[in-house]
């Protein structure tokens, strides 16, 4: 397959899910480099940061007034809970607190996607106590499982993985993923339904 530039062979294949829409990119190493896509999907977070944490255009600022003339650079975004700035995170490779994930959600998203093979959303275990509490009504289930959009994206990710598994004739794996999809599909819509994973009750 040729790269979009038409000159070289495409050796880097990225699948990006944006708002539930799957985009495929087939690029040669040079084009990938200029698009900021790492040729090595397992590059560690520090090198990802070094390559991709350049100020991105117009991101939501977490602290500070909304919509200034000049959008604040991502580097200066600061977590209001612990005071860590994105640039500090960039240098150290570690976040300062749980709220950093909210404060840096915008710049962190693409970074995590590259570090985790294109994944954007958590799939798997959920703290049981928090889940039980959310059923009691004082905390909505959305607080745990995410908004409808987030759940839709999670489902899209799983569907993509299933398609890939089937294409590679990994049927057993596809079956596992389908189980996952089913449990995800049932949990959010009906809070009274089974736990997202069929683990025994404590």
């Amino acid at each position: 397959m040729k790269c979009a530039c038409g000159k070289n062979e495409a050796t880097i294949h990225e699948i990006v899910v944006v708002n539930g829409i799957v985009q495929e990119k087939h690029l040669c190493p040079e084009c990938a480099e200029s698009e900021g896509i790492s040729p090595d999907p397992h590059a560690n977070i520090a090198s990802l940061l070094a390559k991709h944490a350049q100020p991105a255009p117009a991101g939501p600022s977490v602290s500070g007034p909304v919509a200034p003339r000049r959008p604040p650079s991502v580097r200066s975004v600061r977590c209001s809970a612990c005071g860590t700035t994105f640039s500090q995170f960039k240098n150290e490779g570690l976040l300062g607190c749980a709220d950093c994930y909210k404060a840096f959600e915008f710049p962190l998203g693409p970074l995590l996607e590259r570090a985790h093979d294109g994944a954007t959303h958590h799939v798997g275990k959920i703290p049981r106590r928090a889940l039980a509490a959310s059923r009691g009504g004082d905390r909505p289930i959305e607080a745990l499982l995410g908004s409808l959009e987030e759940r839709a994206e999670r489902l899209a990710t799983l569907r993509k993985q299933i398609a890939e598994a089937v294409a590679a004739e990994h049927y057993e794996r596809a079956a596992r993923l389908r189980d996952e999809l089913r449990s995800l599909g049932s949990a959010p819509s009906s809070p009274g339904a089974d736990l997202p994973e069929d683990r025994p009750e404590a």
Partner: protein
Amino acid sequence: MNEKPRQPAEPDPNQPGQTALELINTGAEWLRGTGRACDVVVSSRVRLARNLAGFPFMPRASRVDRQQIVDLCHHKLMEAELADRLLWIDLREVSRLDRNLLVERHLISQAHARGKIGNHSVTGGRTGEDEPRAVAVGLPGERLSIMVNEEDHLRIQVVKSGFALAEALTEIDTIDDRIEARADYAFHPRFGYLTACPTNVGTGIRFGVMLHLPALKLTGDIEKVTRAANDMSLAVRGFYGEGSEPLGDFFQISNQTTLGKSERVLLHDLEHEIIPKVIEYERVSRRQLVERRGEAIADQVHRAMGVLTHARLLATDEATRLLSQLRLGVAMGLIEKVDQQVVHNLMLLVQPAHLQRASGRNMTQAERRIARAELVRNRLAEAVTRRA
């Protein structure tokens, strides 16, 4: 490894050295050398990274925060009935030698021994041997260990002998539930379990299988395994030291990504896709080596046994290399008088902290070589007479 331990007495806090001796004497289950595919698989481990809600992560945690986390965890973990007996070790109270011993036993990381935050250097972050931190060890058997205040507030680990990832996952899942029933974890609907380093976020899970791959190393096919594993987002690392030449043909295969794949799907990838293929590949290579170079392999294994039973000076690296060859000989039935548990135990005992603990004194490097050779000679002679 021994018969049931005697009624366990609480270790005297004024004599933290007792703790280390107790560990050596009761033994770790993963050293048994038994279980599924134990000719190739040494051990299977699962680790969970967890942080407590309401506390800053380690890089921003003050000394007071850290002390509170240690106190809180001490209380919560001890009451959670996580093991027959949970040994709590405050790392500020044990000597450097004993902290190294815990590293050699894979109960804590190098960084944790030194009071550093994982492998990261945090500007202005507090690090040092004086920082409040601990490890809880499940006894008997050391199947469970929980590092408190390493890179994350909690690093929970379960290790089993042989190829037993599914069993390890079931066990750690229950332990995680019991802890979560007593403490709120930091969790985010999109990102899952929140960790200080974003490479661990999501499930926070790391599966690791330690494999003994001497035949694949010898044929050079280990490169193919590494490439195949990398294609599945798995990492292949040598037993000791990151990046450096692996010692003694031991390799760990572990998952690299933690976001977007459930624990079960990850388990499936390792347990049904990659690891069985590696095991089979190693077995086939061993058979081919015997067919094509049988005398050379037998010679190598028996030479290793010869050196180990007669040497008067042994360095750690040399001992590890020879023990790896001996392990191959035992697995292939070339050496019948020694079992894998003896080999595995020796691999720990030849390391500096264990050696000095076992002999009860601090030694220079030159003294250690003498003591190491003596220990190996005695242990192997014992094993051979027991079998005879």
